[in-house]
């Protein structure tokens, strides 16, 4: 039965009706525009004008057919075009009309961007420029303070370097002597006003110059070439800070002419050396710099200069310290008591020292011991207060089992509960309040296990509260409340027992610790207490 299909799926476009994103500018709450048709199939069928709300494709289509009823309002290039593009865009990319050329609007776009019109859709390789920067956007970091030095950098104001002109004998060390005689004022803010102005300057028009065409080695030329060029004059010689700072600012500035301006300044500072007459010291300095650092970089020579100065200071310090005898007491990683040193070393001076040290140690020890005796007395008083509150259990626990072999004192067992009432009353009435020690070993017989009376007494003394024991009813004849009560009572008992046990345990432990401390000092180490 040849049935003609209503719709041939392969030649048709399928759209789904979906809710429109509420951030879409075309969104409104009316049923007409809170939904949008989105194409879901990938057939090579062109349906650019079907269900088109805005004109298709890309935003800056200027050649819109304003005449079409599907075209946007003249100013409406809304984002729904983008949303729609992402779905439809793919289809327009895949759309190829019969001749195999790209759609006209796409071609026009490509041509506008400067790509050749060779039938290849270059737009698939392009993306819209949004404000995400792509790694090259400028991020204004409020914490960046360019005028503050980083903490690991030290800058000194060497503007008052006094290089005396009259001294005739120049030798290798003259640099160091010069450096040591200067007052080095440590600087925190190293900022040149012109550079500050450059950085703060948000108007970059000064930097933009399209005609600028620098040679490849413009920096070198700038350094070696013209002297005294530039606007600034009469600067102080702030070597370190300027060059460091220029380094930093060179990194920041990313335009050629920015570099050139800074290069100008670099030239200036170097050019200013020339007006001062060149002395032997200058030559020596240059030779030294070359020798040590071997390159012509600006930052290097200043850092080298600073490092040398610090070296010299370090040496000076060392010499000062050498006056002391600390070196004689070098231990060489071997523990030596002063007495050993006394016997080991030969020099009389160190012998005196060590003897003196030993004497002083003895004095201190005496003082310390004297002091501690007083404290000990106080401690003893405190503990005696507590001891008045001992009860018999804790007293017994202070005895170690070396001396004392107590029997385990037990609570009355379950089986005894029936007769407990009788025994309690019996014990109360029969016994006096004193525990009697009987037998050869003088033990409190009543309280040992297997003694009914003892357990009753013990229970009373320990202070545990035994709730009134009802005669236990037959199984199944207990009411719910009674059952609950009974169970609750049992639980309480058990929790109390647990607490007591824990307290006992802690007490035992602390006592053994104390005993151990004592034993550590006095007793032989063979005896272990814990």
């Amino acid at each position, binding site marked *: 039965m040849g049935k003609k299909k209503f719709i041939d799926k392969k030649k*048709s*476009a399928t759209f*789904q009706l979906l809710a429109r994103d509420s951030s879409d500018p075309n969104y409104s709450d009316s049923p007409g525009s809170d939904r949008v*048709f989105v194409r879901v199939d990938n057939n090579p069928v062109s349906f*650019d004008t079907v269900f088109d709300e805005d004109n298709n494709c890309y935003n800056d289509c200027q050649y819109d057919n304003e005449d079409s009823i599907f075209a946007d309002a003249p100013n409406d290039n809304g984002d729904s075009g983008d949303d729609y593009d992402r779905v439809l865009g793919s289809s327009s990319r895949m759309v190829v009309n019969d001749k195999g050329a790209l759609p006209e609007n796409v071609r026009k776009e490509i041509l506008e961007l400067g790509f050749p019109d060779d039938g290849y859709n270059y737009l698939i390789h392009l993306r819209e420029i949004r404000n995400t920067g792509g790694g090259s956007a400028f991020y204004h970091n409020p914490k960046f303070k360019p005028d503050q030095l980083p903490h690991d950098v030290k800058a000194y104001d060497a503007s008052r370097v006094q290089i005396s002109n009259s001294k005739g004998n120049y030798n290798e060390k003259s640099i160091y002597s010069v450096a040591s005689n200067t007052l080095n004022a440590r600087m925190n803010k190293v900022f040149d006003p012109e550079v500050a102005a450059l950085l703060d300057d948000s108007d970059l028009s000064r930097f933009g110059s399209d005609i600028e065409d620098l040679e490849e080695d413009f920096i070198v030329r700038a350094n070696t070439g013209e002297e005294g060029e530039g606007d600034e004059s009469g600067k102080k010689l702030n070597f370190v800070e300027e060059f460091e700072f220029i380094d930093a600012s060179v990194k920041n500035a990313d335009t050629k002419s920015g570099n050139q301006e800074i290069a100008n300044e670099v030239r200036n500072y170097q050019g200013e050396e020339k007006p001062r007459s060149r002395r032997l010291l200058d030559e020596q300095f240059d030779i030294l710099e070359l020798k040590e650092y071997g390159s012509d970089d600006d930052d290097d020579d200043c850092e080298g200069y600073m490092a040398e100065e610090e070296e010299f200071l370090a040496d000076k310090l060392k010499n000062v310290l050498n006056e002391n005898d600390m070196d004689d007491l070098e231990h060489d990683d071997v523990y030596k008591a002063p007495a050993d040193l006394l016997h080991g070393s030969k020099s009389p001076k160190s012998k005196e020292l060590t003897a003196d040290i030993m004497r002083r140690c003895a004095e201190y020890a005496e003082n310390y011991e004297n002091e501690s005796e007083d404290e000990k007395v106080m401690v003893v008083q405190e503990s005696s207060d507590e001891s008045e509150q001992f009860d018999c259990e804790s007293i017994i626990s202070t005895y170690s089992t070396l001396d004392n072999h107590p029997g385990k004192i037990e609570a009355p067992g379950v089986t005894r509960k029936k007769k407990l009432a009788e025994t309690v009353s019996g014990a109360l009435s029969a016994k006096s309040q004193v525990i009697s020690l009987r037998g050869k070993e003088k033990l409190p017989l009543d309280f040992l296990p297997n003694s009914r009376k003892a357990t009753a007494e013990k229970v009373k003394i320990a202070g545990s509260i035994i709730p009134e024991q009802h005669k236990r009813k037959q199984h199944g004849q207990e009411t719910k409340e009674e059952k609950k009560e009974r169970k609750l009572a049992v639980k309480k008992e058990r929790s109390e027992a647990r607490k007591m046990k824990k307290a006992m345990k802690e007490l035992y432990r602390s006592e053994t610790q104390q005993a151990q401390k004592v034993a550590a000092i006095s007793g032989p180490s063979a005896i272990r207490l814990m």
Partner: protein
Amino acid sequence: MTYAPMKPTKPGYEEPHEQIRKIRITLCSKNVKNLEKVCSDLIQAAKAKAIRVKGPVRIPTKVLRITRKAPCGEGTNTWDIYELRIHKRLIDLYSTPDVVKQVTSITMEPGVQVEVTIVDV
């Protein structure tokens, strides 16, 4: 009825937007009540616009079943069956796309999925 193929727009080119096409609206849903309501609304709207409509074709509903062992009880007869029913309706129209847009923009119930297929003829 043949018409000239649609070309992407060129400036100054007047496109025939009155073209009548075959349009199939497919409605899917899990609950019948909403689906039937949407269906009837669409057909009413279409008829109000005097479009040729082919009434709701009811595709047999698909029942997706999952059977599992019930957590309670032992034995053979302790199973749970969960099912999901999918109902599908088709509505065919002969009209222009913009009219269809108006028609479909009128009502919607939650849970009803609408798909529109247009034949390029």
